């Protein structure tokens, strides 16, 4: 990529730098949230319950008098962690399945295709709910459920890329120089599949965060008192109709901005990596 092309892209899409900054803030909060939080996110203080945002409590306090700002900060780790784990798992397994299907074709391809079709035959959020209900209500099961509903997308992206590349000249050359199948697949084909994969992962992060937070909003996965954005919104829901908006608002806003950040990042990456999709 030429420099002027990059400059052009950044000019076309000024939101990408913004997304990068937001991403940095998010990662910083996830890594150092518990160190820099002004209050103990778990310490309840009933005397200060349901305080509106102030200089002491930037985002106000919840029904137990816990500092919402600290909890939002610390919650970043949970939300980001779950989404990241789910996306990595889905990408790893999905890539393996997709690459196998695309490279070997035939019956392998058909079987793997059938499997993704089954997952896609369900409304995905309902499937995630059912999986968590079935496997048991725990954080790791939320990760598994999110990974399962994300997986078909990776299988499809990787499958179609690999199926095209299988016939490409450089793959033929590698084969003629005596490389064996798995070696060709992982050493020669996969590097070319990485860019679309990375775009897919970035776009998927936002969606996974939404899913995980939605599951905890309905009481699946993370349990109180862990600070997690979905639960915090659920906690604050009952105070909305009595006017204490901040309890639900700030964690909800944090979630929204985090998802926005990954969506913008994904769009920006796609522009840089794949010029064809841009009009």
């Amino acid at each position, binding site marked *: 990529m030429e420099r002027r092309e990059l400059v052009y892209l950044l000019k076309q899409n000024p939101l990408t730098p913004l997304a990068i900054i937001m991403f940095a803030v998010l990662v910083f909060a996830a890594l150092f949230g518990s160190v820099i939080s002004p209050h103990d996110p778990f310490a309840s203080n009933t005397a200060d319950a349901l305080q509106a945002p102030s200089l002491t409590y930037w985002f106000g306090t919840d029904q137990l008098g816990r500092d919402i700002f600290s909890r939002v900060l610390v919650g970043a780790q949970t939300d980001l962690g779950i989404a990241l784990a789910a996306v990595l798992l889905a990408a790893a397994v999905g890539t393996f399945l997709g690459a196998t299907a695309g490279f070997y074709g035939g019956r392998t391809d058909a079987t793997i295709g059938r499997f993704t*079709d*089954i997952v896609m*035959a*369900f*409304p*995905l*959020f*309902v*499937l995630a*709910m*059912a*999986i968590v*209900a*079935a*496997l*048991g209500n725990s954080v790791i099961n939320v990760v598994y459920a999110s990974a399962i509903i994300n997986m078909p997308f990776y299988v499809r992206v990787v499958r179609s890329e690999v199926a095209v590349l299988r016939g490409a000249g450089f793959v033929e050359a590698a084969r003629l120089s005596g490389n064996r199948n798995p070696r060709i697949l992982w050493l020669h084909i996969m590097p070319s599949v990485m860019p679309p994969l990375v775009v897919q992962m970035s776009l998927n992060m*936002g969606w996974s965060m*939404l899913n995980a*937070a*939605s599951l905890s*909003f*309905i*009481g*699946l996965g993370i349990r109180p008192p862990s600070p997690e954005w*979905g639960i915090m*919104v*659920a906690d*604050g*829901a009952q105070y*909305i*109709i*009595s*006017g204490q*908006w901040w309890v*639900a*608002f700030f964690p*909800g*806003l944090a*979630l*929204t*901005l985090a*998802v*926005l950040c990954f*969506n*913008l990042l994904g769009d920006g990456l796609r522009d840089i990596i794949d010029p064809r999709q841009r*009009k």
Partner: protein
Amino acid sequence: MNTRIFSTIGSRLLGALPSLAAVIVVTFVIMRLLPGDPAAFFAGPAASAEAVEQIREQLGLNRSLPVQFWDYLGDLAQGDFGQSFTTGQPVAADLVSRLPASLELTIVALLIAVVLGLPLGVLSATRPNSWVDQVTRLVTTTGTCLPTFFTGLVLIYVFYYLLGWSPAPLGRLDLMYSPPPEVTGFYTIDAVLAGDWEVFRSALAQLILPAVTLGFFALAPLARMTRAGLLGVLSSDYVRTARACGLSSRVVLTRYALKNTLVPILNTMGMVFSYLLGINVLVEKVFAWPGVGSYALEALVASDYAPVQGFVLAIAVLYVLLNLSVDIACGLVDRRLAR
């Protein structure tokens, strides 16, 4: 030509059978995976080991999995989804009585999304970089990252608490009114049929906020797809041909461009509807909406699994049927897809 349409529908129906089978098998497997022992559950905490064993036998849980699956199929064939111990009713009856609430909400939400999303998409595709395009970009960007439960709460705060325009977010009808005589199960339609405008107004007032919440979420993918699809079609060779032939902008837009964008739009609508079916659970919780989603949720919290399983199955079947209709509609628009 009519026989062609019918054979298309027939082949699509056949094509949907594997999905249906998959859905049934997966729900069965999920039910088997459920934690806890249903027999112990039904027997109650005080029951002896023998009593539990007896119930296990009654429920057929001691038989081999294939046999159990066969029984399960038999039950489904008779419309038996099991019993909910929280409501004490057959799950099938509960679902039937609550499904209209969910469908009314989802369909109105989809209508809102379509009525706003398609024109936004069309306007922004025909006027790239205009202010409409910027608005569309804003709406689609925020729409995809706002969690529905959060949007719902913000709307409640603004329109109920601050402005007082909306009624309390507590279900389908103000407590003052009783539901209209049931015809369709959709309160708005039933109220109109009964000529009861007050009930209609109340039902509508209750419906607006949750429907807007859901609709806003559905708007983004619809507008985005319409815009992208139309932009693609507008730069296609056949639209250029139509322009080169001097056809008027209106004809080019409708007969040549929009009609060719219909297939991706229909597909997106199917996908959006499936999102909505899932997201319903969240919105029903926020607005205390008595649909199947909140039914499943209440059951889930009480570890009452038959309703959850029935819900998953019902929603999945609904989804299969929906995909079927989308497929058929697409085949009617573009004959290449019908082959």
